[in-house]
């Protein structure tokens, strides 16, 4: 092949060591509006792993643009940009400062000032009307972009990437949805962007990199930017830049920018190819859930793009380029496109991380264990290890220990490993979740873990092993609660059994009872309705379905999907009791009561720790990890597995403060 993902590429005046781009994204790593040491470590780790281009978290070019609490402010980024440039320099990674202005899609909560936008059109998410910019204010913003770019270059960065993507003032100017102006900025919607790019070019000179991220499909064809219009936009703007990233999304569909696995990976590639044609010689970056090196390589080989943004892939495994170069692509820890830990646009300011690699974002706080860190060389480095349970926690612990030379025996009760991931991976758009289990199991086997499935260990088996000098890690997962509700004759099923195909369901309408609001209830309802043609009601005590999924940014889309496949959403419906053939529900606030006909209930309520084995072991008990401590998620399982491995050296409590 002529163009290789892992090979260097030239654009503008620079040479990037690979064609893999780590795109700008919210991290909440900031210290106020400054970039922090955690940012530096986060980017350095990706540079070390071989990223060709890094675009730092988008910094606002004006003080009153403050879209989220830790949104970097360009004027406050000098020391951070300098430190990032220095940290990434040894790897020759091209580091660009992301700069932008979120216009009417920002927030007044932190600035306590009005938002400014092309026109006074309220954003559909915040519903807060902005004020329309006048000509002087536009000129001020243009010069603020140039000032930010100059600062970035003076701090040692290669240049800047200007944000005209899903959340940006510039896109708001491009779009008929938000630009209703009657002046020249209304008649010539690209004028501001041209002025910004021109001013930046003047500021940074011909050697500074000027890159642009531009929404080429707002998914609102009645007035928004369409791919056809975008081709004209790209044709006009590409000559002004050194690199152009094709993205999509607009005010009605910001979630389409980096969606979860329900949207097929690589969804932008055809759009990108069309824009590449329009762009002329300027190199084009493809973006859009590209997390697999084969897909990225194919996109390059087919001429759809010149570089590939693999942001989430690099959050899941910072070494994808290094591993691909070494011919070890199969060892790349997969991004499963779950958005659970890496999407952090949320009022609580969660720190960016990854369910597969909880060290991401925590590079300075809790770095990943590496061979040679001494974790396997404790009191008895040759002691073999018995891991009870083959879910993600058990597999991760076994994998690390075996790869450091420990003899490891992993025993799983069920016929297959994977634990709760098996159920989570069922259903359309959920297949990638299954890669997590597959990868963990393959790596464990590769490292030499002896995996036994379909074997139920008794406490005496574990005690015998301990007596023989084995270290033990208990990772027995969670268990279903079958008797949550008063029940006279209703069949109640475990959603994980249903999703994993371990149980049949009676004919007739089904009631999915979801008192939690996480992925389980939503997923099982979708799966039963869409893939099995069942009549399904989803009962939730909340005002929307899947309320805990809001952090993923697609709460609306999830609810709409349920409607589209015909799931009957019964909201504000709290189960009072189950009877043969019906579910009795009540409203959490009023005295409204209903009866729902159902042949069976799938109870997606909270699970409990499967700790019977653990509790029956003699004290001091061995370490336990993941759901058998308290049922939570994949991130916690992987994190606690790593801590358990470390504790075999130090004998600290895991999952406690120690």
């Amino acid at each position, binding site marked *: 092949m002529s163009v290789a993902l892992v090979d260097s590429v030239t654009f503008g005046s620079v040479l990037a060591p690979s064609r893999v781009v780590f795109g700008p994204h919210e991290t909440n790593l900031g210290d106020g509006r400054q970039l922090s040491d955690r940012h530096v470590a986060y980017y350095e780790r990706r540079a070390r792993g071989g990223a060709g281009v890094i675009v730092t978290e988008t910094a606002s070019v004006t003080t009153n643009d403050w879209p989220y609490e830790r949104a970097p402010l360009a004027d406050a980024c000098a020391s951070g940009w300098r430190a990032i440039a220095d940290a990434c320099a040894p790897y020759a990674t091209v580091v660009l400062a992301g700069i932008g202005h979120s216009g009417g899609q920002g927030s007044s*909560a932190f600035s306590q000032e*009005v938002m400014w936008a092309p026109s006074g059109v309220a954003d559909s998410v915040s519903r807060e009307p*902005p004020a329309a910019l006048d000509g002087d204010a536009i000129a001020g913003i243009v010069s603020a972009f140039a000032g930010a770019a100059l600062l970035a270059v003076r701090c040692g960065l290669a240049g800047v990437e200007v944000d005209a993507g899903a959340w940006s003032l510039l896109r708001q100017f491009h779009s008929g949805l938000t630009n209703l102006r009657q002046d020249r900025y209304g008649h010539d919607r690209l004028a501001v962007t041209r002025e910004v790019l021109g001013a930046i070019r003047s500021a940074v000179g011909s050697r500074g990199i000027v890159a642009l991220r531009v929404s080429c499909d707002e998914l609102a064809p009645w007035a928004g930017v369409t791919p056809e219009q975008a081709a004209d936009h790209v044709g006009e703007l590409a000559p002004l830049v050194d690199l152009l990233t094709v993205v999509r999304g607009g005010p009605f569909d910001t979630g389409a920018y980096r969606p979860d696995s329900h949207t097929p990976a690589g969804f932008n590639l055809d759009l990108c190819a069309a824009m590449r044609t329009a762009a002329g010689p300027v190199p084009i970056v493809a973006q859009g859930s590209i997390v697999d090196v084969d897909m990225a390589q194919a996109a390059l080989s087919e001429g759809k793009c010149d570089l590939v943004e693999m942001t989430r892939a690099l959050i899941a495994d910072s070494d994808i380029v290094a591993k691909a170069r070494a011919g070890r692509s199969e060892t790349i820890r997969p991004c499963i496109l779950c958005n659970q830990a890496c999407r952090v646009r949320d009022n*609580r300011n969660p720190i960016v991380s990854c369910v597969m690699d909880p060290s991401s974002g925590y590079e300075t706080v809790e770095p990943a264990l590496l061979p040679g860190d001494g974790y396997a060389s404790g009191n008895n480095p040759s002691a073999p290890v018995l891991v009870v349970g083959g879910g993600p926690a058990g597999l991760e612990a076994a994998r690390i220990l075996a790869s450091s030379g420990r003899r490891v025996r992993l025993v799983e009760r069920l016929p297959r490993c994977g634990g709760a991931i098996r159920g989570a991976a069922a259903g359309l758009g959920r297949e990638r979740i299954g890669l997590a289990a597959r990868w963990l199991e393959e790596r464990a086997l590769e490292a030499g873990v002896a995996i036994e499935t379909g074997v139920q260990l008794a406490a005496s088996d574990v005690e015998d092993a301990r007596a023989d000098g084995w270290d033990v890690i208990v990772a027995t997962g969670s268990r279903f609660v079958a008797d949550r509700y008063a029940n006279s004759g209703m069949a109640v099923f475990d959603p994980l059994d249903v999703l994993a195909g371990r149980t049949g369901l009676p004919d007739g309408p089904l009631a999915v009872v979801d008192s939690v609001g996480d992925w389980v209830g939503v997923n099982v309802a979708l799966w039963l309705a869409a893939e099995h043609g069942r009549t399904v009601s989803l009962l939730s005590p909340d005002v929307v379905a899947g309320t805990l999924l809001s952090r993923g940014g697609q709460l609306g889309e999830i*609810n709409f999907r349920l*409607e589209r496949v015909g799931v009957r959403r019964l909201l504000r419906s709290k189960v009072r009791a189950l009877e043969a053939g019906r579910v009795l529900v009540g409203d959490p*606030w009023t005295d409204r009561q209903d009866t729902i006909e159902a042949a069976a209930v799938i109870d997606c309520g*909270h699970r409990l720790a499967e700790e019977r084995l653990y509790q029956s072991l003699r004290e001091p008990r061995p370490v336990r990890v993941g759901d058998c401590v*308290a049922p939570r998620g994949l991130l916690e399982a992987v994190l606690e597995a790593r801590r358990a491995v470390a504790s075999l050296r130090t004998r600290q409590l895991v999952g406690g403060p120690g």
Partner: protein
Amino acid sequence: MSAHGGYRHLFSPISIGSLRLANRIVFSAHLTNYATQQGRPSEQHVAYYAARAAGGAGLIITEEHSTHVTDWPYEKLIHGFHPDVVPHYRAITDAVHSYGVPILAQINHNGGQASSMYTRLPVWAPSAVPDPLFREVPKALDETEIAEVVSGYSKVASHCLAGGFDGIELQCSHSSIVRGFLSPATNKRDDRYGGSLANRARLLLEVVSAVRETLGRRPVLGVRLCGDELIDGGTTIDDAVKVARMVEDCGAVDYINTSIGVATATLYTIEASMAIPPGYSLYIPSAIRSAVSLPVIGVGRFKDPLQAERAIAAGYCDLVGVVRGQIADADFAAKARSGKASDIRTCLSCNQECVGRMGLNRWLGCIENPLAGRESLPVAPPRRKRRKVVVVGGGPGGLQAAVTSAERGHCVTLLERNLSLGGQVALAATVASRAEFLDITRNLIAAARRLSVDVTTGVEATASIVEGLEPDAVIVATGARPVRPWWAGPADSSSRVVDVRDVLEGTVAPAGSVVVVDDLGFHQATSVAELLADRGCAVEIVTPAMVVGGDLGVTLDLETWNIRAARKGVRQSTDLVAMGVTSAGEGPLQLNLVHHPTGVGATRSADWIVIVAHQTPEDDLWHGLRSAAFEVHRVGDCLAPRRAHSAIIEGHRVGVSL
């Protein structure tokens, strides 16, 4: 109140333990989100509490300080367990003591009412019962961990002593591990910490004993108890009274504070909005006070010193917690004491910028006190003295601009087009359940009169009129006007398709069946629906949003709205976009809708349609004055039509800037 107008009971001194309090007004514990990202108290804490001490509060109790690393439910929680809090404590206590006011620290572990998002550690609770808000399955504590919890309280108590606090309050009430143990709803243990009330209270008494031992004899120790959890199977007043007796009998406690509800289940009862009558929770302190001899603090939406006076005079409680009342006016106590109670900027209990910002992880503010949350920021002196200021518009923005300008020594003239002041606030308050909203302009109008602002109503200020006044500065606060959305057709097409303002102003009187089409998601639609239902109309609200009144969630109005809506028969339909209205003479209107998740059409037949949509700035005067020789500013809706707090903040900001 005594014959000469003083609040005799409120201002009679009282002793709690070793402390002598000058009056009965307590600034009791409440979240502020003023802590730093690292969980340390800030300069803003110092200034905030000092302002209330300066304002005459009898006792200040700080927001909670966490006692253990496993407790971090929200980002800006003070990490009291970290020893470096002590100098920050000292700064707070020195500032408060300089006004002769005592200050206690509230210390707490939130137990299961938390998530592991910030700690990356399992949540600790008495039993594996997930909290209704956080919905994370906790780890049930073993006895070693219980001992660790207890010692955490001691450790933090010692930090508080070293930091100069006069004592400690143990939050055992609405969000606490101690409450979790006390409550049969969350304590399912079968060991000596579960089962009987004595067992469930064991942790409380252990904590009390440990903290008293750390404190020694003199410092004050208080316990805050939940009197009624208002959840299924939870603690009720009878158990709470028994626990209060146990607390008294242990001999280590100096006072009892009270609360109602559970923060993560029934928060709307704890921080009640104006929809719930003042004094609604007085039955709790009253029952406890009749069972114990310790001083008892009562809380529950005391916004007027008279209410507080009566609660004490009637013997419901010995002290009164006034939180929002003192957020809105830091000088609440001093004004009441000095016979200027009518000058108090009365709290509305709107919950928009105090409670509403807490749930969103933002710093605490106040809709009508622009200094709340900004106490630590320096305020510059006027640029020039005694300027001639003309304010146009007598809504909240204009009134605040006038008041702030006048307070800073300027000569202010205010012109209002209508015959009365108040702008849209007056309209919003016409609905019975929203009547207290009127306090915002009532307070401002009183202040304007007090400060001799020259107010003229009924005059439409044109540019030439304003210029004729020869001002040094003009503040345009002309508000906003309704816009008829495209789907409603021209105004002359149907006189029964009307704006919400028309209904509230009384220029139209819909009757029969009414559909309210809501684009705003706040009080406008729910208020007008309620008003019309009260008048006998059959009302339905339709909205493109996923929830009717979605923004009522943060102000804790969603629950009470839904209770009233159910009672009044107001129907609610979501996910519907208005597409047009067809009318046939005098017959019913047909509203055409589309269900946007599925694209399926829908219709409604109604006698009237009420539009609740974004307004447009009333900014003709602003444009007319752009080339004026004097300074011109605009504030509030005439800049961009938003909520009252924006108008107040901007009015104040401009007033300060003159």
